[in-house]
């Protein structure tokens, strides 16, 4: 196959990748889009295999990886998606680093001049340090998301902060770039500056993720998603491979947009998330609520209110998924719909642990997606809703977000407080991630139903019969 033919096949694959992403504009088109993505990948791999010598050797490696991937994809629980995605980012990062090392070792194998031309070395340096940061950063993010903090302190979901942290990171970044430039300017293979640069990049990946707390994880995985794309694009530059550049840029911009959406949903600036330390020591914030009274009721009382409502909006939070109550909620909603109640779900962008996570968790419980609404689409209707049922959510329905001077002022919320009656299920009165008290709980029209979400919802289902 000529280089031109190869490039044209790569173009076909690139177009298919764009179509795969374009399909995600609706659930129906998305399945076809995913198929386009698979075909694109198959084309890319097959035409590349056609120009290599050791097909069997490569296929063995691919088969081992492929089997692991297929096994995990089949087995993973939807609540574990954030960890899985973090783990996958780390693999892309590591693959980028390994390829970069192989390029330095033998540029000839990639159709490059030996030693590597200077321009390609700059790109290789960028691709490999982004890859290394993606790898080690994603490993830490994986540990935090999988709750491995007890095993290893760096995996703790609480931010790891110390004095001079940002200065240290800055110095390391400058030193890393210095060695990268030394690699760029050096003659020959220049292993020394290259490997020192990589080692610092691996360390930096760890150091920049440890100060970021559990609450900011949706931003972190989106950001690492973006990095993994830029790493792939960087490798594409150094190999002069347009398809890798295109695929990498698509992924890079996707991750960047998701990071932006997540930051906006939490009303946090990207810089403050990166600086980390959020949610570290704010336990005292909820103090002073002793004189306020809370009206609490049983699951049966709640079921009575729900059954007599005309319209109900369910606001699920991550607490719902932790309690594995999604199926019970869906059953309850069906019972209500059968009684003629208009039931809808309101999803805050950061309701789960990653962008769109809550939608997947509800879809898994077979909640029809046309009952599920995004925050902006349903907020206008909460004023005319009879009952807002808040399940395992806290900060995303906190009306303090509308009050100047509060820590979460300006954060977009689901306006559950506008509904005629508000039912809130929580395990206890503990504060949410932001460490803030929630005035919603003390409103006259609010009834708290304490207890485990699954147990409470199951009791409601029983009471509805």
């Amino acid at each position, binding site marked *: 196959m000529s280089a031109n033919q190869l490039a044209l096949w790569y173009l076909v694959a690139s177009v298919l990748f764009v179509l*795969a992403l374009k399909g*995600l*504009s*609706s*659930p129906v088109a998305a*399945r076809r889009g*995913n198929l386009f*993505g*698979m075909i694109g*990948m198959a084309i890319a*791999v097959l035409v*590349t295999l056609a120009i*290599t*010598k050791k097909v069997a050797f*490569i296929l063995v*490696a*691919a*088969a081992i*990886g492929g089997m*692991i*991937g*297929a096994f*995990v*994809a089949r087995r993973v629980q*939807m609540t574990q*998606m954030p960890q899985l*995605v973090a783990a*996958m980012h780390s693999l*892309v990062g590591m*693959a980028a680093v*390994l*390829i970069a090392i*192989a390029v330095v*070792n*033998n540029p000839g194998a990639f*159709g490059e001049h030996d030693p590597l031309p200077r*321009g390609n070395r700059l*790109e290789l340096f960028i691709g490999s340090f982004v890859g290394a940061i993606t790898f080690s950063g994603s490993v830490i993010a994986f540990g935090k998301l999988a709750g491995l903090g007890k095993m290893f302190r760096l995996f703790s979901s609480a931010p790891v902060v110390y004095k001079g942290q940002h200065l240290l990171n800055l110095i390391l970044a400058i030193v890393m770039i210095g060695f990268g430039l030394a690699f760029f300017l050096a003659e020959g293979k220049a292993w020394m500056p290259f490997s020192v640069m990589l080692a610092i990049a691996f360390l930096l990946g760890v150091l920049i993720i440890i100060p970021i707390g559990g609450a900011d994880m949706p931003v972190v995985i989106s950001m690492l*998603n973006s990095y*993994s*794309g830029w790493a*792939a694009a960087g*490798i594409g530059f150094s*190999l*002069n491979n347009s*398809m*890798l*550049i295109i*695929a990498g840029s*698509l992924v*890079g*911009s*996707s991750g960047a947009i*998701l990071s932006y959406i997540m930051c906006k949903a939490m009303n946090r600036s990207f810089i403050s998330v990166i600086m980390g330390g959020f949610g570290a020591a704010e336990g005292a914030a909820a103090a002073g609520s002793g004189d306020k009274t809370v009206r609490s009721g049983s699951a049966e009382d709640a079921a009575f209110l729900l059954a007599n409502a005309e319209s109900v909006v369910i606001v699920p939070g991550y607490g719902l998924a932790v309690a594995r109550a999604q199926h019970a909620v869906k059953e309850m909603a069906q019972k209500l719909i059968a009684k003629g109640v208009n039931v809808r779900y309101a999803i805050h962008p950061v309701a789960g642990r990653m*962008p*769109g996570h809550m939608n*997947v968790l509800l*879809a898994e419980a077979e909640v*029809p*997606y046309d009952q599920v609404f995004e925050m902006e689409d349903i907020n206008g209707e909460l004023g005319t809703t009879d009952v807002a049922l808040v399940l395992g959510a806290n900060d995303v329905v906190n009306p303090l977000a509308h009050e100047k001077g509060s820590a979460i002022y300006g954060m977009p919320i689901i306006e559950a407080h506008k509904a005629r009656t508000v039912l809130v299920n929580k395990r206890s009165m503990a504060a949410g991630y932001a460490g803030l008290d929630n005035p919603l709980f003390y409103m006259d029209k609010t009834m708290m139903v304490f207890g485990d979400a699954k147990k409470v919802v199951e009791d409601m289902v029983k009471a509805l019969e």
Partner: protein
Amino acid sequence: MTGTIDPTVINLVVFVLAVFVGYHVIWNVTPALHTPLMSVTNAISSVIIVGAILAAGPYETDFGAILGAVAVGLAAVNVFGGFLVTQRMLEMFRKKAPKAEKEKA
């Protein structure tokens, strides 16, 4: 204006245009599908496997070729894992038409 265009410049052209395409395509993705978006972008960025195949490819199985093979393995985890888990999620967003009708009856 003389001479040929440096490949790096062509790469840059491709890069900038691809970022533009990405920007416009991604803003059209419905927020409900952001998790499948992340898993499918994971699979797509694993097209880096192409670089890994080239690294593993040369005749003599040296240190670089072994690293390439390892990279093929790592990227293959993502290629299969990414597309399959995306497909699994998207199946969940399928309308359960027959079942819904049963409930109405």
